[in-house]
């Protein structure tokens, strides 16, 4: 094949919209870093001693990396997917021992005296490649065999374990976003739904503990009531038995009124007893009436209910006995149970102040006081979004959110137009990582998520993160550009 013609078609086939979004995010990021570390003495944005100057260097290198990636044949990535993955796993493993300790974690490898890299950032790329390669195997259908799940989960959780061993939990959590990929490839939606319920139960059970209902914490009572409603819902919608659903519902409501009436006159029945008796009764009733005709559904309803109740008691136990006090505190601060403005809540409170003080239009470039005066910790890395909030106001933050939204939606579109599972799965991996980083980073900065130290892609200061995401994105662009070279087989 004539190489010049190949390159010509390559540049025609590159998804330039993604490249432009990438450039916009990266360039905006440099300005933010400059503003965040600007210190009243007028250092140039290009000064290498400043974060912004260094970041510009990282960006320059990122462009080189991007260009090199585009020039390499896309088949290389597919062919060497497993070796790359294995290489990264080995590096991750070694990092546990040879990593430079920073703030209690050993996730950085020092190369020489100036350059430090975080292998976890590159492992995302390797994991995405490996997962894509797995799904691209001949006749691979996720739901066909349980072993397919094991293989996928192995690829995902091997780096997770190693990264946790480096004590870099935040980065490890990112890999959980790959469940979105599994979902897209056929994993049951119940898993996502169950996760959603688990989070809801957890938040409700942990948050509302100071008032009592029937002698048990309000939050737990609320979760138990939700479980009761879940039974009614499952019977009605999943088992499609309106009569049984109605009877169970009336039973719950009727018994609830009686118990409430007794409680009103001072005769308080223990909540655990009441709820557990009623839930058991409902399940027994289901079993008797529907076992013969709807065995599968009844089994599911019973097991889902039992799992929910067990989960509730595990949350209670786990939160109080397994989580360490500082982790409990972080969660409590996010849930608004505790206000610890000098400790765990300090970062978030300051970042809320910085963002909140920006108003609609912001204070103007380099006019932010909160970020400039170092009120917000980690403001050039994890909390970079504050700078936008303070200096560019709501217009700025909305624009950044819109930009991320466009980029991610664009990647999903790219994913869906891939002729082969390899490209599709890889693209969804990229989208999932971005969704997770976007949601968690901005969520923590505006006080909606616990503080998990992960960067805002393309914005946050740091070479590893920038290069990691650049590689992820440009490999995707290269695969996409080559999608017509080799149709599905």
């Amino acid at each position, binding site marked *: 094949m004539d190489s010049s013609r190949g390159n010509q078609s390559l540049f025609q086939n590159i998804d330039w919209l993604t490249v432009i979004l990438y450039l916009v995010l990266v360039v905006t990021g440099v300005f933010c870093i400059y503003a965040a570390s600007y210190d009243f003495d007028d250092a140039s944005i290009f000064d290498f001693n400043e974060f912004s100057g260094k970041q510009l260097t990282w960006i320059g290198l990122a462009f080189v990396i991007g260009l090199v990636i585009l020039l390499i044949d896309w088949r290389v990535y597919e062919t060497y997917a497993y070796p790359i993955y294995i290489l990264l796993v080995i590096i991750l493993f070694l990092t546990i021992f040879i990593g430079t300790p920073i703030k209690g974690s050993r996730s950085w490898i020092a190369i020489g005296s100036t350059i430090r890299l975080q292998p976890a950032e590159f492992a995302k790329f390797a994991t995405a490649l490996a997962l894509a390669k797995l799904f691209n195997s001949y006749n691979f259908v996720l739901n066909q065999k349980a072993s397919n799940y094991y293989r996928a989960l192995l690829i995902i959780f091997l780096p997770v374990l190693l990264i946790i061993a480096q004590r870099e939990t935040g980065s490890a959590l990112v890999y959980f976003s790959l469940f979105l990929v599994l*979902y897209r490839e056929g994993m049951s939606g119940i898993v996502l739904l169950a996760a959603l319920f688990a989070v809801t139960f957890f938040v409700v059970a942990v948050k509302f503990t100071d008032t009592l209902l029937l002698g048990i914490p309000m939050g737990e009572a609320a979760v138990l009531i939700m479980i009761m409603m879940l039974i009614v819902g499952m019977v009605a919608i999943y088992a499609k038995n309106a009569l049984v659903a109605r009877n169970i519902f009336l039973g719950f409501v009727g018994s609830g009124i009686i118990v409430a009436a007794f409680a009103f006159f001072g005769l308080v029945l223990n909540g655990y007893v009441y709820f557990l008796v009623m839930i058991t009764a409902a399940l027994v009733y289901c079993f008797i009436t529907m076992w013969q005709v709807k065995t599968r559904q009844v089994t599911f309803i019973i097991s889902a209910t039992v799992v929910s109740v067990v989960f509730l008691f595990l949350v209670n136990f786990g939160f109080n006995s397994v989580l360490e006090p500082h982790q409990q505190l972080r969660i409590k601060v996010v849930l608004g149970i505790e206000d610890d403005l000098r400790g765990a809540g300090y970062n978030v409170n300051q970042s809320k*102040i*910085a*963002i909140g003080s*920006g108003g609609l239009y912001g204070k103007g470039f380099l006019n932010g006081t909160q970020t400039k005066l170092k*009120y917000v910790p980690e403001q050039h890395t994890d909390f970079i979004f504050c700078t936008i*909030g303070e200096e560019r106001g*709501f217009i700025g933050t909305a624009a950044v959110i819109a930009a991320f939204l466009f980029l991610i939606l664009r990647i999903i579109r790219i994913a869906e137009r891939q002729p082969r599972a390899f490209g599709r799965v890889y693209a969804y991996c990229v989208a999932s990582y971005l969704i997770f980083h976007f949601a968690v980073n901005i969520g923590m900065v505006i006080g909606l998520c616990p503080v998990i130290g992960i960067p805002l892609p393309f914005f946050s200061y740091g070479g590893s993160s920038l290069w990691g995401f650049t590689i992820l994105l440009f490999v995707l662009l290269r695969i996409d550009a080559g999608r017509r070279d080799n149709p599905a087989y």
Partner: protein
Amino acid sequence: MRKDYILEKRKYVIIALLLIVAGIYLVRLFNLQVLDNKYKDVADSNAYLKKAIYPSRGHILDRNDSLIVYNKPTYDIMLVPRDVQEFDTADFCNALNITRDDLIKRFEDMRDKKNNPNYSAYTPQKLFTHLPPEEYGRLQEKLHRFPGFYIQKRNIRQYACNAGANVLGNIREVSQKDIERDPYYSPGDYCGDLGIERSYEEVLRGEKGLEILIRDAHGKIQGKYDNGAHDLSPVPGKNLKLSIDINLQAYGEKLMAGKVGAIVAIEPETGEILALVSSPNYDPNLLVGRDRGKNYSQLVKAPHKPLFDRSIMGAYPPGSTFKPSQGLILRQEGIVSLSTAFPCHRGFISGGLRVGCHRHESPITLKPALRTSCNAYFCWGLKNMLDNNKKRYGTIDNAFETWKKHIVSLGYGYKLGVDLPGENRGFIPNAKFYNKVYNNHWSANTIISISIGQGEVTATPLQIANLSATIANRGWFITPHVVKEIQGDTIRKEYREKRIPKIKRQYFEEVAEGMRMAVTGGTCKRAQFRGVEVCGKTGTAENPHGRDHSAFIGFAPYHEPKIAVCAYIENAGFGATYGVPIGSLMMEKYLFGSISPERKGMEASMFNARTAR
């Protein structure tokens, strides 16, 4: 392929998830940034340390330019609670000579929202106030070891002499109410309390300056905001020159020692108050510094309420000092001529009513009536005006309203408008008042005691003195005031304009002559000194609460008077016993600067007399 198609649809679930998250974040951001304004304020208080620069408060001088109130620096220890880090408490306590428990107690008090409603961890709070310079020096050296603490220099008042506390007033820390009333104040500021410190607060305090500093997260000052472009330099308060002669004031206070009452001395020509004595008085230095609160509450509880300025707040029956005003009204209204004589046989006897009087000639005309302080004369005069002049006034109501109009024009019944806070208006009844009290059935006899300054009528010593000044001027007065000059400004117009009652000068001459006669051959003989033509009028005011009040008004010299006085001593008996000596000693002291040897005995007996119970 159908299976794949269904799976492809799952992208919508993922997209929906993404959009929901982004939507929630946008709502949250909109809330934080646009709807909720509190973050802006917090950010400003984070980043800008607005430091007030306090101007020096205006000094106060007396009419002879001697400095009586000035400023002394004092040091407050301030801290911003959230900037305070762990520090060596032992070291800190040593520097201040306090125990650890004191320090802990102070911190608790500071955080107690009940005592300190403005407490905030983000704003400067006062830990200790009024550090003496040596403690300040000791702490200043160590201050760098105590981040979050700083020392603020403040000025407190110093008084050159222990006199005139009621006139001068003092300064105190502003209360929550003051802050709500006047946005100029911020917590910890000082403002004037009582006296001219209060009434001239805005002149004395000047304008606070403002320094805006940029402060980083560690509480370190990074420099001036915008190079100080928004800073304001303080404008010092203006000095006040009082009309008070501080020596005369101190002398008056000495005369009043052991007595309850007031002395007011006015320069008739200008309305300037030369002395405004209220007894018991207190040392103004008590209300300065650390012990102010304790001393203040002691003064509140002290017998005879020293904080109550009797000279302008006390409403007393004027007694016979009221008679000159009655003479003026009777003459102006034509009720009596100079030769009109009324009988007095040891009193006024009419329709079963008797108002007693003492032995003197009868019948009697106006000037001798003033000389002898005849009660009957003024009772007959008022009776003629109210009961026997239907032709002129129509009804008794009209007659009484005419009387009232005149007496008000002489300065009674309403606040005179002195430049001090808390002035009492006294009380002059009107016809409506009596109609209500007596259910429309009243005549001159019913109310006859007001003609001799008893009954419902009350007046402040200032109003009584003002009558004396008006007679001294032969028919006009200027609203009495204590501030003579304001540095770089003029005093208010009302303290420069004459107020002229509608009574002819001629009648004032007659009354003045009557008052002169009272000194030469009447009730006030003891008021005479050093050949000065002194005029006077005694007053012995009955009161329902005990012994008569002893009062005196007078002016001197007879022609071109330089001083008019009122002395009012509670429960001290006859006007001649205390009122006359005290009032005349004040005049002599003012006119000559000293007391003549032949009156030294009287002076000493006044210094030593104790009438307060």
